[in-house]
């Protein structure tokens, strides 16, 4: 039997890898389970998930389609309660969307408000804060749009923009809430391949500059390896965390060169093999 365990490809991490030690914990999942009632009775989607997200890291959660990745992320976000167990953010139990954490949806087109201009969409994140005057709200929205390269599009409406630009608006809006933790639910799966690479580079850049903690859910091995410091690999239903691996790839990463790095290729190979066998394709 072929050994596809990841330790087989583990190589020594380069010396310039940022080590978030001593590891302050941003998010903890403590024996989280989640079941749904269906016509065939209770369906256990997540089983006893234990996972820690370190302060300031970029963690990818990788698993096949339909394994409950989004469910897991929504529990972290306080958008869905766990059936048992607990999610904690900075030590406090999550029982609703907590301050300092924003969820970025895969369906950016449904997440933007079509009746609001691009700038007004971004302003949704902070306009409720009485500290900002009308002029300040407008100025701040413009600043966040500049971060994602959308200066000049303030007065456009979401439906006048391409998919990639709409997701940039959603990213600007998420950042405008001034979060410490960003939860990304397959955010680049609905855009074309080139736009995806651009957005990945943008997110990496924003993560580094803003000192964010990012949790990315994806089924795209290439994306997980390219973006993250660690990858949590999920099993099939009922989903558990099988293994958490360090990618050990240096920052800053380059959209082309990093993908040719031997470590990147070895990890991608091993993970692809593993996901495909898991899906029963091999």
């Amino acid at each position, binding site marked *: 039997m072929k050994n596809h365990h990841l330790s087989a490809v583990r190589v020594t991490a380069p010396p310039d890898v940022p080590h978030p030690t001593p590891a302050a914990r941003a998010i903890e999942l403590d024996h989280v389970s989640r079941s749904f009632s269906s016509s065939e009775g209770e369906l256990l989607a997540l089983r006893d998930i234990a996972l820690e997200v370190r302060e300031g890291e970029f963690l990818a959660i990788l698993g096949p389609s339909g394994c409950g990745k989004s469910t897991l992320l929504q529990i972290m976000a306080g958008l869905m309660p766990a059936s048992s167990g607990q999610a904690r953010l900075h030590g406090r139990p999550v029982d609703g969307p907590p301050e300092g954490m924003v969820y970025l949806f895969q369906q950016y087109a449904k997440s933007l408000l079509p009746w609001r201009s691009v700038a007004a969409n971004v302003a*949704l994140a902070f306009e409720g804060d009485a500290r900002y005057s009308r002029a300040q709200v407008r100025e701040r929205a413009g600043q966040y749009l500049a971060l994602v390269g959308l200066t000049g599009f303030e007065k456009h409406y979401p439906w006048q923009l391409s998919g990639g630009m709409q997701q940039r608006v959603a990213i600007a809006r998420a950042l405008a809430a001034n979060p410490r933790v960003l939860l990304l639910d397959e955010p680049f799966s609905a855009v074309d391949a080139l736009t995806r690479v651009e957005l990945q580079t943008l997110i990496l850049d924003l993560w580094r500059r803003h000192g964010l903690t990012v949790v990315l859910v994806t089924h795209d091995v290439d994306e997980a390896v390219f973006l993250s410091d660690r990858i949590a690999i999920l099993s099939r239903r009922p989903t558990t965390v099988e293994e958490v691996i360090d990618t050990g790839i240096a920052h800053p990463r380059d959209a082309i060169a990093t993908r040719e790095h031997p470590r990147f290729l070895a990890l991608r190979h091993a993970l692809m093999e593993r996901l495909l066998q898991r899906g029963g394709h091999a």
Partner: protein
Amino acid sequence: MSRRTAMARWLPGAASVLLVLAAWEAAVRAGAVNPALLPAPSVVLSTLGGVLRAGEVFGPLRQTLQLMAAGYAIACVLGIALGIVMGRSEAGYRLFEPLVELVRPIPKPALIPPLFLFLGIGVKTMLFIVVLAAFFPVLINTVQGVRGIDPVLLNTARTFRLGRAAVVFKVVLPAALPMIAIGMRVSLAIALTLVIVAEMLAGENGVGFLILDMQRAFRIQHMYAWLVVLAAVGVALNAAFEWVERRLLPWRGRQ
């Protein structure tokens, strides 16, 4: 070019209207119909011209439109408010849904006689019946619109920690507005119908009262002149609604 295409679009419709008017005029002149019961359109128009010149149209028209506007506005506010409650809360839906389904199918003019017993023969009854009739289409469409909002949109509001009122006014209401507008449009026609019926039964003035009054006084030409006024009001209200709708909902169907 655009003027020509616009004309090409209007021409067939205008032609059919003119054709019917011409046939009507010819039928009266040829003695095929009794002009005492159905005067020629040219006669109706000249009667209407007389009414307009004498300034007699504005008093009754204002009365009718005021009553209708008040009833319609109250119905819209109540329908949207209850619709949001029923659309947002499962308990609210279960509480009100049976009551709504019980009252909604009743043809509203049938309620005017019992209302006379409680509210008297006058403005209170007329207003109440317009509100009641215009209320349900707005309510039903609001409930559907609110319940049909994409969960992603509501979760977006949650992840940005919007408060209860902010969720309703910044997300729920605008998101449901295209559906609410459909209900409001249906209600607009219903409100006009009911105000006319109510004026015929309980009015002392107004367009509905006058149409019936002219018929009873056998001033048939005037009766038809007021019917033309009413048709014009209907067309104008519809056009005004469309204009407002286009301005308020430019994003509709663009998602």
